[in-house]
């Protein structure tokens, strides 16, 4: 006699099952809206493919298979490999030192090490190249980009080290593994997913970077697409864009495969209260302190100092208003476009995030994943596709307007907004919605009285992430800037292209300040969930 505990329920006894609509039918609206968002995000890629197929395969092949492509590919790939490797080493080491050791001043370091992320890559590049002309080419690009983007590895690795279960390391020690072995086999294993994610971001940023490489005189796919586009060689830009997108897709897919094979990243539950006892550094704290100081000095101190140097050098002309666009005017436009982009991206991300967090199912998963395809679309490609799209299909309608620029930003930074909104929705569990509904509240009322209220701070954070990215964006801005206006980035670019360093410097400084302060606050916001709350 089977005990009642066995779960051997009769199979296929469904009877009239599936004859009624499931409770999920009410999410049809959500799925529809999400599909529309995904469609909007797919516009640039779809347009590229349509254009390429319209041009004919032989034409595209002719444009792709030429010596220039191979040299661009070589330049792009070797830089990506070198910088990603350097970032992985620097980011992981710094994260371990700050999160897991008794390093003096850990809290201060945690901030100082991250702030360089807020400095636009092309400003870092400007900082080096304007001081020393030897900083150019491959060598210069490796130094500049490593210093500019290593926090992309540091941040996720530090977070995963902070949240990892200390029990695993202790067990490994008890089983007779030494410190080094534990670090390699357990600690790195726990952080592997985060490390890979960070490396992926670094690679994608490198593929999309324009300004920094232009200053350093280093030619990649992105700089070439930009040049071809400005020379009105649409077919060539289109063909090169396809290669670039393919490259990004390969990187994305590769990360997916490696990450799946590496197994689950072990995390302690959300209520992990136990923290790692810090490792004693002993005398090694001194070399560690020197190295970290050097890192911060080069990544943060040098660009800032360089900007200040050029400002001091040319103080009279900057104040005399010899510029054709005033600083406040450019800042105003920057803020306007950034705000628009932040709002639009957050609104677009909300339904997709809601679907991803609240509902399970293959179709929904696919939809969410598809929106990440935007990651493979460098800004230059999105901007190029959008501007060409308006020209070809909308008879130029919308071209040169702020709306197109804002839409371009929103598409480019959609994945950022999605990450932020998803994180914020995780604070509003579905069980609260159910309780609210059982208490007689309608769906829409629940959304505003519970979900949005709880997710509110996270939504603001998502907005800020996009805002910051838009403020420091250069490539797409240069291509889509409404006629007759300038932003901080484009005006900076105009001056530095003319080698008017002292006039460019104030714009760079304002961008640094505008980006750094909110980044610091954002960093604190995203750190908070790690700490026990209530």
């Amino acid at each position, binding site marked *: 006699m089977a005990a*009642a505990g066995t779960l051997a329920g*009769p199979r296929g006894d469904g009877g009239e099952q599936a004859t009624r609509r*499931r409770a999920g039918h009410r999410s049809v609206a959500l799925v529809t809206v999400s599909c529309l968002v995904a469609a909007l995000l797919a516009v640039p890629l779809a347009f590229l493919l349509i254009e390429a197929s319209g041009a004919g395969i032989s034409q595209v092949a002719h444009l792709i298979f030429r010596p220039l492509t191979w040299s661009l590919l070589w330049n792009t790939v070797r830089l990506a490999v070198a910088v990603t490797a350097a970032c992985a080493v620097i980011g992981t080491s710094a994260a371990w030192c700050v999160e897991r050791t008794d390093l003096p001043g850990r809290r201060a370091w945690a901030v100082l090490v991250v702030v360089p992320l807020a400095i636009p890559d092309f400003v870092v590049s400007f900082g080096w190249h304007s001081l020393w002309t030897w900083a150019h080419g491959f060598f210069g690009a490796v130094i500049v980009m490593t210093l500019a983007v290593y926090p992309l590895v540091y941040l996720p690795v530090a977070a995963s080290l902070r949240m990892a279960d200390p029990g695993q390391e202790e067990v490994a020690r008890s089983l007779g593994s030494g410190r080094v072995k534990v670090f390699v086999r357990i600690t790195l294993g726990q952080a592997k997913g985060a490390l890979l994610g960070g490396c992926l971001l670094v690679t994608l940023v490198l593929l999309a970077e324009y300004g920094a490489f232009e200053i350093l005189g280093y030619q990649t796919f992105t700089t070439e697409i930009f040049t071809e586009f400005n020379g009105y060689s649409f077919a060539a830009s289109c063909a090169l864009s396809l290669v670039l997108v393919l490259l990004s897709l390969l990187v994305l897919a590769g990360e997916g495969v490696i990450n799946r094979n590496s197994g689950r990243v072990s995390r302690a539950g959300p209520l992990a209260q136990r923290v790692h006892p810090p490792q004693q550094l002993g005398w090694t704290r001194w070399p560690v302190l020197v190295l970290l100081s050097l890192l911060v000095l080069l990544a943060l101190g040098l660009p800032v100092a360089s900007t200040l140097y050029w400002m001091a050098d040319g103080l009279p002309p900057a104040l005399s208003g010899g510029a054709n666009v005033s600083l406040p005017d450019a800042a105003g436009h920057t803020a306007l476009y950034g705000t628009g982009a932040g709002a639009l991206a957050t609104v677009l991300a909300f339904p997709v995030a809601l679907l991803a967090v609240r509902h399970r199912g293959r179709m929904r998963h696919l939809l969410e994943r598809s929106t990440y395809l935007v990651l493979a679309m460098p800004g230059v490609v999105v901007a190029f596709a959008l501007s060409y799209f308006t020209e070809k299909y909308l008879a130029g309608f919308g071209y040169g307007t702020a709306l197109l620029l804002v839409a371009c930003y929103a598409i480019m930074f959609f994945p950022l907004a999605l990450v932020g909104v998803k994180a914020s929705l995780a604070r509003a569990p579905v*069980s609260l919605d159910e309780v*609210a509904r*059982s*208490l*007689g509240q309608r769906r829409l009322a629940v959304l505003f009285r519970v979900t949005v*209220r*709880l997710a509110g701070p996270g939504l603001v954070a998502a907005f800020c992430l996009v805002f910051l990215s838009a403020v420091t964006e250069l490539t797409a801005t240069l291509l889509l800037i409404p006629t007759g206006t300038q932003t901080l980035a484009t005006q900076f670019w105009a001056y530095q292209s003319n080698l008017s360093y002292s006039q460019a410097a104030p714009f760079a400084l304002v961008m640094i300040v505008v980006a750094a302060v909110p980044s610091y606050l954002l960093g604190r916001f995203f750190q908070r969930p790690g700490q026990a709350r209530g």
Partner: protein
Amino acid sequence: MRQVAVTGLHKAFGTHPVLTGVDLEVPAGSLTAILGPSGSGKTTLLRLLAGFERADAGTIGIGDVLVDGPDVYVAPERRRIGYVPQEGSLFPHLTVEANVGFGLAARDRRGGKAASMLEAVGLGGLGKRYPHQLSGGQQQRVALARALAIEPAVVLLDEPFASLDAHLRASVRADVQEIFRRAGTTAVLVTHDQDEALSTADRVAALRDGKIAQYATPEDLYSRPADPGLARFIGEANLLGGVVRGDSVKTLLGTLRLDPAAAGLGSAGQVTVLIRPEQIDIMPNGPGLSARVISYRYHGHDAVLDVQPGTEAGAHQLVVRVTGGSPRPAGSEVSLRVRGPVFAWPAD
């Protein structure tokens, strides 16, 4: 009068059937526990009652209203149900008072309704606090007050005490029972804890293989389960073979008096007899079946022994529960005797 009526309820997730024809009638003003192991579909049943999921087939009635059935589906917010989820699920951004007043119309929120509800669950004066400032037991009471504030037709509780510490559980349980009794609330509680189900509920519905295997008072369910499988699920059970003779049954443990409810067996002949561990008395020696102690587990308030009846080599081990008395180390010889009437089913 019945307050909740469920007939022929089916629910499958994909190809996996969870509920395969549940029938249940909950009397008004009573507390019913739905008892089942994890994965038995008891939470699904509760969510169907609440309207968070739709049934594939069957009907659900709450009060006089059909809320789920062919071509009928009433949204959760119009069912007048008070839902108390496992973790309480208080709104973290609202004060305790605002939580309790959440389901009230705006003008009622200002009145003292929320405060008086808090008073009723013994939390008067804590209205201005936030949920994270309360203990687990207090949070659970606030969740209850919030559910009761809307004067629901039925309160649904999903393992409401599972997240509480053992010492809190009993007192919160008793309080909840008392609050329900006073308010005359109809409530359905889902649990996998048989102790909780038997001690809290007026009636217990045992859920097995997607159906209600038995719906009865706790006493009936324990002493007169519908079949041997259910007997094993509700508490520990010794199941022995026996032969009926009139109103008694002859077993390994002697000739035992049959429970009147089992008297209908008539001359069924071969039966399966249920003897609960506490129905067996144990003595150092004397009349009765002699047996050897295999193991002795001391629990403080009682002790549980596995014993091997000595006469027949192949006989099953028996479980015996004794209160007090002297320790019986493994290997010692004892004699067994059964107290009171026993229940039985026809052998299969």
